[in-house]
């Protein structure tokens, strides 16, 4: 503890003490870096051992994958941050999810003209499975969600919207705010939504409902059905379960990636 001295002498002394602390500080950081380097090597060995015993478990058991991911998240580690990370290199988790990312992008691009860039997790799952072929490893919906979360970093608008017990996956940079999302959730029940329904369920003014619906139409996420009884229906092609069984045509596949 320094006593507050007055005068130039005291100030000079203070500066000298500070400088000494800083110097020690440098040494401390260097020490810690060296310590970290050593611990890192040890950790790598531990991970290698773990991998030799349980790598298959991660690959084959989707529940174990979930446990693994959750534990990593709890301690503040992202095993999927980099292909160069230990987790990725030694456990092989990286390649699994990054490849899945590519497949997800391709499916979304191929179907964009049909659904405007919005697709249910179910349909995405079905199409990805089809694309992977019979000899590839099975993937769960949890796997898809994790892969999509990573894809957000690429800036092309991937996001995950919870609706009625499942999720809608958005793959275009269309601006969807809370109002839009809430209407999508309302539409999930029947595949379509009307102005009256919105007013009744959400207690909105007509104008607010109309604006949201117009925006969805403009973005190609909704189709207008003027021939519906009583009032216009706004259908969401993303929610048509019929589409599950439709193949991606050769033309769509070609347009997916130039």
């Amino acid at each position, binding site marked *: 503890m320094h006593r507050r001295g007055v005068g130039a002498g005291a100030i000079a002394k203070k500066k000298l003490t500070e400088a000494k602390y800083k110097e020690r500080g440098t040494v401390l*950081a260097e020490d810690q870096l060296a310590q970290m380097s050593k*611990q890192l090597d040890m950790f790598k060995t531990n991970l290698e051992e773990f991998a030799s015993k349980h790598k298959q478990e991660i690959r084959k058991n989707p529940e174990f994958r979930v446990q693994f991911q959750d534990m990593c998240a709890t301690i503040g580690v992202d095993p999927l941050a980099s292909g160069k990370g230990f987790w990725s290199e030694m456990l092989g988790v990286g390649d699994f999810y*990054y*490849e899945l990312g590519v497949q997800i*992008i391709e499916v979304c691009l191929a179907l964009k003209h049909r659904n405007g860039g919005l697709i249910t997790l179910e349909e995405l799952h079905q199409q990805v499975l*089809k694309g992977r072929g019979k000899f590839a490893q099975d993937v769960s919906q949890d796997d898809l969600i994790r892969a999509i979360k990573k894809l957000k*970093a*690429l800036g092309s608008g991937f996001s995950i919207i919870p609706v009625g017990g499942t999720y809608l996956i958005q793959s275009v940079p269309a601006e969807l705010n809370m109002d839009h999302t809430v209407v999508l959730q309302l539409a999930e029940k029947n595949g379509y939504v009307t102005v009256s329904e919105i007013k009744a369920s959400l207690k909105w003014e007509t104008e607010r409902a109309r604006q949201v619906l117009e925006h969805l139409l403009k973005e190609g996420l909704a189709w207008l059905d003027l021939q519906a009884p009583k009032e216009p229906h706004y259908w969401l092609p993303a929610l048509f379960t019929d589409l599950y069984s439709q193949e991606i045509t050769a033309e769509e596949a070609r347009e997916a990636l130039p």
Partner: protein
Amino acid sequence: MDRFLWTSGLLEINETLVIQQRGVRIYDGEEKMKFDTGTLLLSTHRLIWRDQKNHECCMAIPLSQIVFIEEQAAGIGKSAKIVVHLHPAPPNKEPGPFQSSKNSYIKLSFREHGQIEFYRRLSEEMTQRRWETMPVSQSLQTNRRPQSGRIRAVGIVGIERKLEEKRKETDKNISEAFEDLSKLMIKAKEMVELSKSIANKIKEKQGDITEDETIRFKSYLLSMGIANPVTRETYGSGTQYHMQLAKQLVGILQVPLEERGGIMSLTEVYCLVNRARGMELLSPEDLVNACKMLDALKLPLRLRVFDSGVMVIELQSHKEEEMLASALETVSEKGSLTSEEFAKLVGMSVLLAKERLLLAEKMGHLCRDDSVEGLRFYPNLFMTQS
């Protein structure tokens, strides 16, 4: 196999579809049936199988007929399967594909995958037993037995015992793996704590730490997958690895970029690069961090972020602003264009076409007509004609 009954495949009122999967084949016990390619649907009340080639061929089993289910893992040349053990068929059962069967179980073979999700949902439905609380028409309620506890029918006891043993074995494997994982995580957590304390030291020193030390630290963080807490960044959150990667990208992307008019979205780049690599793939963050270093390393490519958040890679020689002049010409020739129309004309992806038109609008060359029919761009006559 005699538990199935013919059905139209249409759902009843109060019956909801839970999940469906194509490419499923049915086995009667261990025997393959001619029902080899069908769509399997799970509803709250039934398991329905419909032939993909002949939709008329459609049959179902009420979920109440199921005693229990088990998973059979995939093998070489063999698809993953779900084994469904069934109660004997009730005497008043409606007609189906078979009158009698010697087996009390069937197998569902998932030739196009989907077994993981299907098993999960089927287990859930078996637990929730929603068919008991949501009545549908009489024909579905063919098995009104009390379902409390498992009914031990003849022959099933031995199977159940084997299952228990297998379950215990699997549980043991899982718990060992889980235990090892927990121990590993404790060590990983120590690394995280250490890195936090180092990061704090670095923050405090504000300039007394060398470039070298920073780079070393960042690469340690990269290996562990720990987010970079250091605020002072020379090359973004890049490391040596990302610098190397950036240089590699130039080699890989030069030609594709030239083929695509000098510009590609980052999603396209991600797919292209990873498809080319085949293994040791890049994570999305790896790609972004490498691209952030392109400018600093004075490489012939650059990363550009549009207002919408869309990220692209351009050749340094590519001048998007120059492309605007030709974009204006194209739009003028046609009177007006949407992003899709423009994309088709010029041979670009719709995403990038839209960005170009938006940029042209921002620069005042084009103006928009935003209606429910879509977003259409016109030459900005306010500028050119006074």
